């Protein structure tokens, strides 16, 4: 499974979490891919925190509108029925619980649902942008991430070591190996990829996983 296949697997699985009518904010990077896998039978409305609802696909080359970009600065379109607003309104929507789900990548996530995805002290300090508000405000926080770092180390930890983005806000973790739900008792393994195994998932996860009687198949 190459990198792109992993990313597509994760994105497809995340997309299946949404219900008809959901308002969803997709973070920069892999989460943006989720848009490619939305079920056309459901209306999912995408919010872009730089100020609009109704994010549509990238325009045809040459049709880019410099004023229509997503929060990552990439050219997109605004679908029929969309609406534009200022940044206070945008984060009123986010913080006020009007976003049903947000999908974010992460550096670390832990068994309490804490996440750290905005800085590595002394190395990488891009700033939190809208991430802290999104994680606190969205009804459901979905982490879409490769299971391990590039070096092969676990990203799903007992306790985050990097500076947190927010405490106890993560609801679901989707990786190329597993789907893991954050519960009050810990991390509950929901699904394991068909190319993987319970053993591999636990081995690559620092936190101890709760294994229910039935574990689904991620494919």
């Amino acid at each position, binding site marked *: 499974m190459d990198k792109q296949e992993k990313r597509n697997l994760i994105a497809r699985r995340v997309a299946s979490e949404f219900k008809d009518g959901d308002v969803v904010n997709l973070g920069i990077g892999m989460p943006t891919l989720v848009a490619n896998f939305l079920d056309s039978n459901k209306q999912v409305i995408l919010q*872009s*925190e*730089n*100020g*609009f609802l109704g994010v549509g696909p990238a325009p045809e080359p040459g049709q880019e*509108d*410099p*004023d*229509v*970009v997503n*929060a990552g*600065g990439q050219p997109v379109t*605004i679908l029929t029925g969309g609406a*534009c*607003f*200022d*940044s*206070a309104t*945008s*984060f009123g929507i*986010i*913080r006020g619980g009007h976003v049903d789900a947000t999908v974010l990548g992460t550096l670390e996530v832990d068994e309490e649902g804490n996440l750290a995805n905005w800085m590595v002290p002394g190395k990488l*300090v*891009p*700033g*939190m*942008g*809208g*991430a*802290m*508000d999104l994680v*606190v*405000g969205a009804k459901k926080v979905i982490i879409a991430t490769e299971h391990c770092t590039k070096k092969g180390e676990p990203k799903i930890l007992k306790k985050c070591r990097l*500076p*947190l*983005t*927010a*405490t106890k806000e993560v609801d679901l973790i989707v990786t190329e190996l597993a789907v893991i739900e954050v519960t009050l008792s810990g991390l509950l393994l929901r699904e394991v990829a068909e190319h993987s195994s319970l053993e591999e998932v636990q081995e690559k996860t620092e936190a101890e996983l709760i294994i229910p009687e039935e574990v689904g198949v991620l494919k």
Partner: protein
Amino acid sequence: MKDVLTPTQAAQKVKDGMAVMVGGFMAVGSPNRVIDALVEEKVKELTLIVNDTGFPDQGVGKMVAADQLQKVIVSHIGTNKITGEKMNNKEIEVELVPQGTLAEQIRAGGSGLGGVLTPTGVGTVVQEGKRVINVDGQDFLLATPLRADVALLKAHKADRAGNLVFRRAARNFNPLMATAAELVIVEVDEILETGSLDPDEVVTPGIFVDYLVRGEVQDNG
């Protein structure tokens, strides 16, 4: 009737050491002609309040590269490596603020509030140095108002009375900053006669605006 300034005249309103708000999100909805003039005028030691520092060669990123900033209050600097370098070299002080909190702080500054209570950042390093206020059992951080000496903004259209409308994602922080600075200068694509905008479509009322500057669309001839 608002006076229309050249970009240079607008830049000359900004003095060394001032606090300056600049509209825009990753250089979309930034007053590019005014920024270029500010760089040319070499105004320095500014405190910049802005969503992000753009790119090294776009938006306020040009001011970062030209060493005009003493401090930046900002939510994101990741698209402009120069900001991070200067931060690490202690050439620029960078205060990172969650984007929604930054928006509310500017809104509070413009609307006479003493602050707002936000749940964002509780339990993170953002909490350091902030007052924590508990309401009905939940902790919130007190976000205090932000104001500036000058706001440099970008709108799509203005009428002669200074009423503004914005376009798509270029709206972002512009309407908020229009309320929160002593002097508000707005670069616009098009200046219309008063009466061309329906009162219901105005986003920023003209009373917030001091000067207009013609943007690139009109003035490239």
